[in-house]
């Protein structure tokens, strides 16, 4: 393994271990989406009978893709918060004093978020299946949802890391949590776009989260479709590329300040 590849692998592993060792940091990304899923599946069960609602077995089937992506996005906050903690605690300064590849500092964090979101998706699928979830896309569909969620989680993690690098404050990074919450609500995460109206429908239509969630959802409720998967994945990948560029700029600015 080349030294650069080793830096990437080591820092990714450190990021993942760092997150797993702090259960308190994982709880929001695990518990909140599951609570939303449990509440909405029972409370909104009757709404699937509305004319125009997509053909689904249950609200649980409609909602599971949202829950998985929501878990990925909530988990992404930890990447930025941990980066800020490294800056606050001085570890970041020690890291840049070494000949470690600069981009591996970022990629390590983002890869950690990707891995966590990927495995979390299967955990959520498993829990939902205990309550009667069926996935029309089968294992391939579940893999597709997990990849879209993990890429979206990595994308949001890169934005979160950029905030962490820029602010150097874990509190500021945590403050971005309501933003994710708002983006989720102003999308088709909780209800079909076709049953919305007016400006809210317009807002949900221009929100990339809607398209990503709808693609992932179709793999669950309509079966495997490579075009749908690639559509959802490309939006998530686009967010990831933009996020990486922004976090690289933030890193460059911080390194320039140190120079």
């Amino acid at each position: 393994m080349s030294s650069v590849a080793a830096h990437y692998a080591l820092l990714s592993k450190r990021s993942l271990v760092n997150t797993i060792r702090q259960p308190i940091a994982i709880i929001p990304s695990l518990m909140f989406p599951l609570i939303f899923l449990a509440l909405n599946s029972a409370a909104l069960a009757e709404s699937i009978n509305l004319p125009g609602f997509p053909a689904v077995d249950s609200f649980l089937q409609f909602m599971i893709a949202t829950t998985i992506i929501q878990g990925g996005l909530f988990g992404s906050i930890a990447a930025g918060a941990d980066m800020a903690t490294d800056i606050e605690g001085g570890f970041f300064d020690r890291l840049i004093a070494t000949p470690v590849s600069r981009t591996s500092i970022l990629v390590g964090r983002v890869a950690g978020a990707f891995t966590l979101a990927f495995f979390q998706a299967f955990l959520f699928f498993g829990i939902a299946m205990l309550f009667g979830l069926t996935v029309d896309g089968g294992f391939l569909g579940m893999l597709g949802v997990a990849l879209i969620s993990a890429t979206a989680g990595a994308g949001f993690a890169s934005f979160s890391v950029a905030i962490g690098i820029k602010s150097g404050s874990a509190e500021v990074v945590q403050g971005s949590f309501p933003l994710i919450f708002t983006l989720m609500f102003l999308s088709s995460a909780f209800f079909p776009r076709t049953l919305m109206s007016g400006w809210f429908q317009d807002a949900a239509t221009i929100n990339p989260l809607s398209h990503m969630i709808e693609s992932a959802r179709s793999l669950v409720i309509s079966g495997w479709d490579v075009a749908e998967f690639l559509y959802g994945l490309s939006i998530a990948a686009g967010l990831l590329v933009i996020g990486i560029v922004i976090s690289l700029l933030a890193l460059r600015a911080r390194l320039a300040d140190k120079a």
Partner: protein
Amino acid sequence: MSALNVTWGITARSLMLIPRFPSTFFPSLIMPLFFLVAFAGAFSAFVDLPGFPADSMLDWVLPMSTLQGCAFAGITTGMAVARDLENGFFDRFIMSPAPRGALLAGPLLASVLRAMFPLVLLPVVGIAAGVNFHEGVFTVIPLAIAGLGIALVAGMWAVGLALRARSQQAAPLMQMALFLSFFLSTAQMPLHLLTGWVHAIARFNPMTNILELARQGFLGDITWATTWPGLVSLAGMAAVLGIFAARGLRKIVP
């Protein structure tokens, strides 16, 4: 120093903290507005469900959002008490000859007064958005009773928890209980459209009666039959959570 003077002094201090720490107060204004927009927008098609009791989702959501704002007012007061406990300011209260009951009554009165902000803001937004006020100006009377009551019981819960935890880290627990009490009731759907375990809990959740009390003027006539269960539920919650808060204070001031 009379108990009333001390209570008012502590209340006034709590209210003065609003401009000094606006970030701790804004959630009680921003969150209900956000819920109003998000729920009315995302779930606007609910009104087409058979038996849904509202003509517009705004009529259904506005009272719920207002009560959430009022409850947040109580929670933020509890968080202010937790901050006082954390930084030692509350110790000065304890060492003073202030009547002990006033140490509780002050923050609770502040909760109720803070709730006036969402109680005024949300109906004004509702008028601008075209919400139906079936009983004219009287529509807001049950809403105000429910809102002030919820602010009081949420304050009792949050202050009681703050007195036990003595740390602002109790804030997520304060908020989570509030969140669950609303969403395990008829916050989103009327009782007859709820199913399974949520229906079973919502039937006995006092918040269901309190929401019906607040909503009645927005959905139709105001009646005693819809009013009294809400009042009884508020009284019951106030009795239980009042004891919870008083015992919390007794743990600090035996």
